[in-house]
């Protein structure tokens, strides 16, 4: 039980008053951005990364900084449910499935039950995810220590192939979005040879495109433009929640233990495979609907229909950090931004983190247990306030959010050019999301582009250009083969649909 010992050490590091205060601050901020349109988890963390530069330089400060940022992540996961249940507006994509039964429940006057069920399931899902992180990630990290460039590239390839294979709609849109991310990542100095690439003689292009700017623009500004277009009229229930209702609901929840377990498993599996929380929540909702004896009543305000997607979304959101920490491969845009933050603080995510930065890793893992507990307490006690913030008209909230985005973009490099870039990315984000070009693979490619390319080039340099290196041994061969299978999944399913007798 080496892990338990490390975990205890982690608690010793994470449990300072300062860190606990940061946890509360992070969770409250996270719930806030999860509730508001235009400020998701990924985007809010991107805005705050520059503010943590100073904090991360102090001794032990990296742990504090990651606690702040990861708690924003947990908070955003919790916050998504509030807007879904009260106003039928999913604050985050993974909360869409929560609206199916959450909103009807609140229409029937069962807001308290719906919120309690959502928060509690979220907490349980996250707890399962954190347990998985505690016991599985050291094993994966140990295993990954043997990885060479070929294995790493194969893992990146698998990540990106999964996005293409599991994309809804036209896979070529996913491919184009992803490759644009790679192209943007290539701009600037080539990390291997030091030559200037794709700068076209413009000095400002030398430093390349910063993913933080892209995230703030694509998700923040893009979302605001979409909200403007849709014309947000908020009508919804009061966010009241008293302890008696919480208690009554808690007594009822153990009845749904099968759904909870199933949803946790679905969530953890989907979280490790890139694709993340959103498909996990839908899949788990679908399964619950099929297998529950109340399945017919789903979409009419069934509490189980809130339990299933929330458990899965949180389990997935949490376990998405496993590949991020152990392999340096984030499974979601938010995990990608956290990974970028680690790189900025001078930490190399990957298996060596578990050897060289034990304090950091276990401090973070311990903080996840506490952070989610803090999250549950915060959301159960503060829902009415967040519901009030949601009622603030968009003509006030909109410009304030945009000013925050501009400040966030500016502070990355203290450069006005970045603020203009943010606007351009915002328009791109608006057009892309309206045409169903996925934004997540673009961001992931932008973050991972340089590392993927470096490993690819080192791998084929070693083999003198022979692509056989990616099938050289059982390990790398298996990963590559899996990636290829996923990559051609859209083709095979399309062919199968044609061939299959009707």
């Amino acid at each position, binding site marked *: 039980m080496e892990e338990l010992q490390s975990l205890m050490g982690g608690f010793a590091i994470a449990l300072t008053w300062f860190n606990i205060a940061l946890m509360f601050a992070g969770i409250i901020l996270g719930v806030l951005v999860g509730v508001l349109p235009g400020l998701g988890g990924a985007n809010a963390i991107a805005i705050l990364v520059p503010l943590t530069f100073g904090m991360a330089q102090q001794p032990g400060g990296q742990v504090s900084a990651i606690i702040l940022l990861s708690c924003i992540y947990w908070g955003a996961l919790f916050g998504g449910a509030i807007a879904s249940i009260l106003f039928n507006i999913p604050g985050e994509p993974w909360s869409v499935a929560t609206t199916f039964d959450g909103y009807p429940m609140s229409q029937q006057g069962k807001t308290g039950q719906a919120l309690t069920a959502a928060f509690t399931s979220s907490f349980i899902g996250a707890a399962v995810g954190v347990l998985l992180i505690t016991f599985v990630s050291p094993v994966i990290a140990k295993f990954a220590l043997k990885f060479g460039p070929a294995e790493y590239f194969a893992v990146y390839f698998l990540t990106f192939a999964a996005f293409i294979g599991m994309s809804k709609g036209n896979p070529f*849109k996913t491919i*184009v979005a992803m490759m644009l991310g790679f192209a943007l990542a*290539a701009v600037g100095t080539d990390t291997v040879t030091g030559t200037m690439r794709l700068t*076209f003689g413009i000095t400002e292009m030398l430093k390349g495109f910063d993913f933080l700017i892209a995230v703030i623009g694509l998700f923040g500004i893009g979302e605001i433009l979409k909200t*403007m*277009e849709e014309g947000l009229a908020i009508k919804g229930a009061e966010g009241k929640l008293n302890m008696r209702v919480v208690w009554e609901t808690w007594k009822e929840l153990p009845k749904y233990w099968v759904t909870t377990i199933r949803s946790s498993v679905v969530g953890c599996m989907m979280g490790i495979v890139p694709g993340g929380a959103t498909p996990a929540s839908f899949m788990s909702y679908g399964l619950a609907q099929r297998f529950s004896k109340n399945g017919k009543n789903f979409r009419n305000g069934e509490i189980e229909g809130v339990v299933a997607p929330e458990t899965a979304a949180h389990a997935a959101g949490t376990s998405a950090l496993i590949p991020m920490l152990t392999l340096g491969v984030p499974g979601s845009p938010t995990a990608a931004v956290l990974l970028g933050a680690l790189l900025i603080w001078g930490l190399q995510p990957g298996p060596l983190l578990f050897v060289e930065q034990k304090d950091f890793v276990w401090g973070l893992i311990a903080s996840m247990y506490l952070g989610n507990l803090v999250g549950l307490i915060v959301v159960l006690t503060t829902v009415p306030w967040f519901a009030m913030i949601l009622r603030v008209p968009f*003509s*006030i909230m909109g410009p304030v959010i945009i000013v925050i985005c501009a400040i966030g973009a500016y502070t990355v490099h203290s450069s006005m050019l970045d603020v203009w870039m943010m606007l351009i990315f915002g328009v791109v984000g608006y057009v892309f999301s309206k045409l169903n070009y996925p934004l997540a693979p673009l961001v992931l490619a932008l973050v991972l582009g340089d590392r993927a390319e470096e490993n690819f080039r080192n791998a084929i*340099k070693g083999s003198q250009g022979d692509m056989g290196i990616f099938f050289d041994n059982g390990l790398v061969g298996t990963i590559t083969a899996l990636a290829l299978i996923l990559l051609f999944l859209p083709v095979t399913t399309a062919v199968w649909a044609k061939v299959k007798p009707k």
Partner: protein
Amino acid sequence: MSDMDPQHESPSAVSNRSMEIIVAAVTFALGALVISDSLRLGIGWGDEGPKAGYFPFYIGLIICIGSVVNAVLASLNRKAGSFVSTAQLKDVMRALVPMVLFVGLIGFLGLYVAGAVYIAFFMRWIGKYSWPKVAGVSLGTTIAFFVVFDLWFKVPLVKGPLEALLGLN
């Protein structure tokens, strides 16, 4: 943010199909740009393994191929609806144009003053709030930003003439 619900009545400004083809054309052009610069850098094998243009060349190539496929798929799709109606486009522009002006103003007025002006303008123009409310919210949030960013986190933002006058630089 229109007061009425114009989405259903107002005519389409751009069809989904045209927008798909425009976007595909733009991504194709970007792909071609990447290819051209990669060719300049060399896409073959150098002294230290693959040259700097090797990886981006294939990225550019895939972008171009994908863009062509997207354009063809879009032009084959006969029942694509409207990308944006004129009323929606007007709403988006009502957000976008002030946003661009705000970013433009930052250079002259500094981030705080430009932000306050922008929030006030938006509240008055779109939200039709009374002047006291407009002043309260825009000044209040700006002061809050100043306290958080300048005083608390000590990240200096762009300052303008007003801050110089007040000696806050």
